[in-house]
């Protein structure tokens, strides 16, 4: 097992570098030249210069800024290593993500590391509530559908989840917003708190909760259908296993057969969805957050791409990649916990 984890970790590190390198190359293609902009801004503040002096001074400043930002070379690998913090800058110092320098957000006028945590917390908050709610609803529902396969209830659920599964999530959100905000006026349309309010303590908590409720409900409904279907399918597969027939033949109660024998087997394909879902909460729900103006990771990323806040984009990409790879590792390890066969073979 230890060997397996070590192997996976090594592979993960390799893929991480590969992916970030690809992303870094894309990032480099973006038409932003911070050194040039800064040099030009500085030259504009200087007065009493002839055109000629200006030109030489500009070249000087441009070089200075290029060296400062580490862009004084065209070698992409060097640029990448500098960004990682593994290659020295012109003056010999290291400054990259391994030194904890992830860059500076020009939108927020803060280092990106300071901006992200609050957004991540928000996303995580509604993500976790949603995940718990979704699993709490879908797993019993899926099991019930599978056990009563082809019953009227199952067929109704099949039809219902087919609609839900075929509906793009944003249409579900639109319907919910129209229904709960525009018609019933139960919830606010957007934001995290009442604009201009200075509530504290309990009042504040209630206010935030009031704003967060509808996004959470929307997010929950958005993923109910597909997970119910997956749960039902894997449970049906599990119930048709030979071991279930044997268990029934032994005279075990139906409850034991379903929840102990079949569910354990049905869980194996569900692992990637459950674990992946938990990690996905950190990445945020881009469409939902955009529609509700919810200050989470998704909206942060979207705004960063809209305003071309490159350091922010890059940092978020690193987080996304890392989360994705780490989630894969955890999924693989969980398989080992859930499925003894996997444990033995590795």
């Amino acid at each position, binding site marked *: 097992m230890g060997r397996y984890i070590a192997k996976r970790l090594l592979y993960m590190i390799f893929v991480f570098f590969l992916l970030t390198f690809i992303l870094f190359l894309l990032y480099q293609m973006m038409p932003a030249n911070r050194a040039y902009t800064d040099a030009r801004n500085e030259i504009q503040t200087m007065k009493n210069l002839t055109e000629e002096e200006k030109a030489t001074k500009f070249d000087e400043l441009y070089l200075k800024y290029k060296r400062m930002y580490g862009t004084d070379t065209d070698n992409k690998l060097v640029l990448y290593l500098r960004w990682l913090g593994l290659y020295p800058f012109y003056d010999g110092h290291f400054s990259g993500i391994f030194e904890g320098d992830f860059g500076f957000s020009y939108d927020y006028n803060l280092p990106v590391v300071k901006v992200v945590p609050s957004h991540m917390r928000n996303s995580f908050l509604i993500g976790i509530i949603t995940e718990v709610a979704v699993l709490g609803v879908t797993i019993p529902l899926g099991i019930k559908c599978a056990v009563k396969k082809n019953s009227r209830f199952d067929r109704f659920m099949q039809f219902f989840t087919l609609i839900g599964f*075929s509906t793009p999530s944003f249409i579900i959100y639109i319907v919910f917003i129209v229904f709960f905000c525009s018609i019933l006026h139960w919830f606010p349309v957007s934001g995290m708190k009442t604009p201009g309010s200075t509530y504290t303590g309990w009042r504040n908590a209630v206010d935030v909760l009031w704003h967060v409720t509808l996004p959470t409900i929307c997010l929950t409904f958005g993923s109910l259908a597909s997970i119910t279907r997956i749960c039902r399918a894997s449970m049906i597969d599990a119930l048709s296993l030979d071991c279930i027939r044997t268990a029934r033949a032994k005279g075990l109660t139906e409850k034991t057969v379903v929840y102990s024998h079949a569910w354990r087997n049905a869980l194996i394909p569900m692992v990637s969805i459950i674990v992946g879902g938990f990690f996905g909460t950190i990445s945020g729900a881009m469409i939902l957050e955009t529609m509700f103006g919810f200050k989470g990771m998704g909206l942060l990323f979207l705004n960063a791409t809209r305003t071309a806040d490159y350091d922010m984009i890059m940092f978020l990409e690193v987080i996304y990649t890392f989360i994705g790879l780490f989630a894969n590792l955890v999924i693989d390890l969980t398989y080992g916990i859930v499925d003894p066969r996997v444990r033995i073979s590795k």
Partner: protein
Amino acid sequence: MEKKKKENIFRKLLRWFVRGFFGLKYEEKWFGKREKVQKEIVYKNGVPDDSELIVSPGRQIFNRFMERKFAVISVVVVLIMFAVVFIMPHFMTKYYDAFTETTQKDLPPTLSLMRVPKELKNNIKMIDSYGSFSVGLSKDGKVYVWGIGKIGATGLNVKDIPEEVQNAKIAYVAAGQDHVIAIGEDGKFYGWGSNRFGQFANDEKTEGNPNLEPVPDVVVNGELDVAHIKKVAAGFQASAILMDDGTLYIWGNKQAYANMDSFVGRDNILDIDFTLNNVVGLDTRQTSVVTGKKGLYDMARTTINGTKAVKMKDFLNGRKIVEIRATTINVCMLLDDGTVALTGDFQLDNVEVPTLAEGEYLIDIEAGAYHYTALSNLGHVYSFGGDHYYQAEAPAVNGAKKIFAGAFQSYAIDENGKLLDNWGLKGYLFGTDDRGANIAERVVAGGRITMTVGAIAVIIEIIIGVSIGLMAGFLGGWVDIFLMRVAEVFSSIPLYPFMLILSSLLAQVSMTTDQRLYMIMVILGVLGWPGFAYITRAQVLVARESEYVTAAQAMGVKETRIAFKHILPNIISVILVNMTLSFAASMQTETSLSFLGFGVNYPQPSWGNMLSRASNATAAINFWWQWVFTSAILIFTTICINTIGDTLRDVMDPKSTNDK
């Protein structure tokens, strides 16, 4: 004995159609019971020979699929959908992506724009239209409004005719962009609709605003001499009343009509009309279109295309202008010799000025938003000019005595005021969007793009995924390991962030909209292939171990032959299922991305970007038709595609029982 009709393919298709939509009961009623040949097991030399009963797996899958009613309906629906979105655009000859029409913004679904009220149909005195509504006046002085009376989100409705107007006997009406004016037989002046720019009344809000021309006192006090009114006209946010003696009363928004000042207080005007941005008049000299601006409308020509415009003075050559009528951008003049002349620019899509028969000449011209309708001395009607809504295609009418045109409609009336015919824009099945484009047309055009993107993306996924999966499964060893690691890298790329970065990158590169579309297809395809690779590889690995492959190998069949003749057909079914589900998923991804503004962009329509306005809660409720129809069609299509995929998977699974 009943004569059996021959079962041919068309009959069979019809039969399926009936079964799909009406059920088995009607199928048997109309086509008779299907003969079920009960094949019996024949014993040959004491050994049962059931080879007759065995059907090929493909045939079995097909038969089982045909038993599922929903699945068959879904196939039909998806095929119809494909046919509609790929064939219909060829018939929408007037459609183009970037079409905008300010006066037709945000109109709800209706087909009533041309529906003259029943009470009015036989005694019409006059009709005027602007934008989305028409106002009509009956011979007994009653006012009717039809079309869409709601003015944006203001809550005002021009269909709410004031009580005093309903009680009074009205002599003239005219329709503006968002207001209606009426003059009673007693000279009293009425107005309703929006008064934000002083369209019909002077109140404290309009008082002292230098950009507004106040309503003249004569009009406000109701001192107009109705018998001597020559014309009542209304424009975008302005109105004018012209008297017999050349006196002109004009008022309204001067920002909309910058040259209004040069008309205020004039008393030598013979005719007046409004384009979208200019007031145009005809003064007593009758030699030019008066605009108060130099160089505007001073070149004239006789046809829309073909003839070169010449200076007005040379063109007229002594002839006089009798009447002028203005559409949004151009002006048509009726000359004293019964011919017409045009001045101003014309947009695309025009019907040419008619050539008249010997002895026929035009006696009246009316102008709509882009088209003109003309009446000849023989009672025939002709339309020409802008034809986007087919409003310039006049029917054959005999005995017309009067014509009215406005907005995108024309009406021909006989001498008794009876409506002979009307033609033009009826309305919009799904309403219009925030740019005034017909949503129904955009749904079709958008469906073509959404479905194309989905289909091409899936084809790319299959090509890459299946070939890599086949390679990995067949070759095994380090090739397998390497390819699967590559697949893993691709599947761990976060889709949305990656797409967002790419499309904001692509936004910097100047690309045509088509190139952008190809990029989206390729990106979706390239990021989606690992799923197919995993499935193909797994299937190949299973197939390699199966008995029939072993048997084939034992018989000495070549490896390549085994791969393509024995293994591939068995994999194809699984690929087919995943292709269907993946198609729906790609369509969903594309719509979501376009909705966010990172996929297909305006002016190209897609089912995703057509919905982007609905992310605003107020717009979503006020303009419900802008998202309800599109999303309903999108959901319906995806449901059908998913149903096909699900059913295919069910019927292909040998473990699943046949009972439903």
